[in-house]
């Protein structure tokens, strides 16, 4: 309950601030973390709002006292300064109360962390490899593997002074040629590694961000509850085109996914020629 109020206050205050600049575009102004479409992402969002709420509450008290002091205790009002400089009681109180708040925060945070790291009982596994500057997905349960590169239109528009208005490109910088395709409701385990330098695979709606490191195999997982297209980006500086290797995940209904699987295994993307061709790009 308090969460929604906070949320609304937050958005309202910012909408007000924002409206001074661009009254028409308010709908596009994302202010907060997306709730996302997995159980974990909802839990992470809840933790985020909880800690934000705690911080805002403390801020109101602390800044409130400070502002009152600034208004009341000024020389221009003719006050005589007090000369106290110590109070053991006060100092104990403001050491102990924060500790209690922190312990109260630590418990749900630890629970959330344990859930995030539980990669057991996965329904399928995809190996994700970071390259400068694209991703490769290998479906370990099938004979499918392909590269996923920034789509042509964005790639053309992002050149210096390309003459193309980024606003005219749909999903500018957030579209790829071959997205990762997974079925809805399946626990997808990702094994992440990298071929050259560090990368990080991140999709905000799935609440997965994990580094892809050469020589390491990191694990992450997600289980998307809602079919749809989810977009993210590489989140670890990986050189010149770090900003241009998006992550796109298509979450399909089970039957659509099965049809996609058949399509992949019979021809096209995963065929050796095609892989070789992608490699040349």
């Amino acid at each position: 309950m308090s969460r929604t109020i906070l949320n609304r206050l937050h958005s309202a205050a910012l909408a007000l601030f924002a409206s001074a600049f661009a009254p028409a575009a308010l709908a596009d102004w994302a202010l907060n973390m997306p709730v996302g479409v997995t159980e974990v992402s909802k839990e992470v969002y809840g933790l985020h709002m909880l800690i934000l709420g705690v911080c805002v509450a403390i801020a109101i008290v602390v800044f409130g006292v400070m502002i009152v002091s600034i208004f009341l205790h000024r020389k221009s009002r003719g006050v005589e300064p007090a000369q106290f400089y110590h109070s053991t009681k006060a100092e104990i109180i403001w050491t102990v109360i924060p500790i209690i708040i922190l312990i109260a925060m630590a418990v749900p945070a630890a629970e959330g962390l344990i859930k995030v790291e539980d990669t057991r009982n996965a329904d399928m596994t995809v190996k994700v490899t970071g390259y400068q500057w694209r991703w490769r997905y290998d479906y370990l349960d099938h004979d499918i593997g392909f590269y996923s590169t920034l789509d042509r239109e964005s790639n053309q528009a992002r050149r210096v002074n390309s003459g193309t208005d980024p606003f005219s490109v749909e999903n500018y910088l957030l579209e790829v040629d071959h997205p990762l395709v997974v079925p809805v409701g399946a626990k997808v385990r990702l094994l992440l590694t990298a071929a050259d330098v560090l990368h990080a695979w991140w999709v905000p709606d799935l609440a997965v961000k994990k580094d892809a490191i050469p020589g390491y195999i990191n694990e992450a997982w997600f289980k998307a509850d809602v079919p749809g297209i989810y977009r993210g980006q590489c989140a670890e500086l990986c050189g010149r085109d770090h900003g241009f290797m998006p992550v796109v995940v298509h979450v399909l209904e089970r039957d659509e996914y099965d049809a996609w699987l058949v399509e992949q295994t019979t021809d096209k993307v995963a065929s050796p020629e095609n892989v070789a061709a992608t490699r040349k790009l």
Partner: protein
Amino acid sequence: MSQVDTHSHTDHHDDHHDHGPAKGLKRWLFTTNHKDIGTMYLIFSLVMFMTGGAMAMVIRAELFQPGLQLVEPGFFNQMTTMHALIMVFGAVMPATVGLANWMIPIMIGAPDMALPRMNNWSFWILPFAFTMLLSTLIMPGGGPAGGWTMYPPLIQQTGVALPFLIFAIHMMGVSSIMGAINIVVTIMNMRAPGMTLLKMPLFVWTWLITAYLLVAVMPVLAGGVTMLLTDQYFGTTFFNAAGGGDPVMFQHIFWFFGHPEVYIMILPAFGIISEIIPTFSRKPLFGYESMVYATASIAFLSFIVWAHHMFTVGMPIAGQLFFMFSTMMIAVPTGVKVFNWISTMWRGAMTFETPMLFSLAFVFLFTIGGFSGLMLAIAPADFQYHDTYFVVAHFHYVLVPGAVFAIMAGVYYWLPKWTGNMYDETLGKVHFWMSTIFVNVLFFPQHFLGLAGMPRRIPDYATQFADFNMISSIGGFGFGLSQLLFIYVVIKCAKGGVKATDKVWDEPRGLEWTLSSPPPYHSFSVAPEIK
């Protein structure tokens, strides 16, 4: 009055021994005087602040709207890397060392620093180190572009600039370590009779602890970058997985240095604020001893939290839990400090001269940076925040309206003491309000950008991030321009103005206010008695 006594006494001494400054360039090249060296550190830091600031302007100009308009992505990465290196090692650290040089001997009643020749050397290394670092921008392949964190393997893709980057960092490290040793030795040996440790001004305390942090972690950074060097040129594979090395090990080494480093930048700032708020509240600092213990606790904790910068590298759960809990603990001593500052103000008789305005803004805005830091400590939430603009907003809040505002507060506070002239209060206030408004326009929207999913260190972004980036850039340009006013105010004050009294402010505490403004060339030739 006792102040006048000390003053005439010191002058008297000077007349006898003729230790005045040498003339011309020699004075600055060969000086062993803590005030001259302090001045050089501060001027150097200002030059670097403007240099790093110019790079920030390039970054914000490119990010003004989506699409690439001004620079290539590779050059953009050089700008973000160099901006960070210059601001951290060239602007903030030398500024606090400059303040330490100027104020510590005066605050503890010493004639000068304990090791004056080393003091000269530790300053004069810096211009060479930064000339070398900046020269990489015109080398084939350009400057380093792998981020100031220099993570391998990416940093190994740097061209000929890599060894210059590494040697520049070595030189900065040597300079910092010598500066730190000098400060420790000065504080330990040169205090006036009666100045026990727990009578030292808080600025001296915070610098003493900072100096220990520097001595402890700068060698770690030096070791880490040396391993990068041997990996690149001598066939070792410390960080190369293909040769049995470990790229993540570098991150552990770097952040074992890097986390104490952020306290190296902020602890002296805490000290400055703890000097200024009591003066303008006309009330003693609240909870002096708990301030000292809080500073020491923060310094200790800074050694055991480093991997919170690395929650996404794939650590075991036990490790993540440890670093999450230890990081959350830092909120406790930091909270104590904020509460003490507010209690100092409480029932005081405040006036709002420029140093106090900057200090109040510091308490507000640093605390906001502290809150976002607490949010970042929550590991599962950090998986979303990590490497986004939320992090950029967080550390700029603690470094710009945090460390930099405190340094500016300190400069306004002590400038009349240094120059003997009052600065222009009206212009100072204009500078304050412009800086404070623009710094928030600059950095606050970056919280939203990060939460909405914009990664950091990207030269171009998806169109839904366009509006906040434009606001942020406008704030950036405004903040950059405001600092030109700061330079004008400082130069104007150095050239002349209303003469400052010895005490400068109403009832300031501390030995610096017992000396003349400006102080004699040798601060205390006869040690003052502290009761």
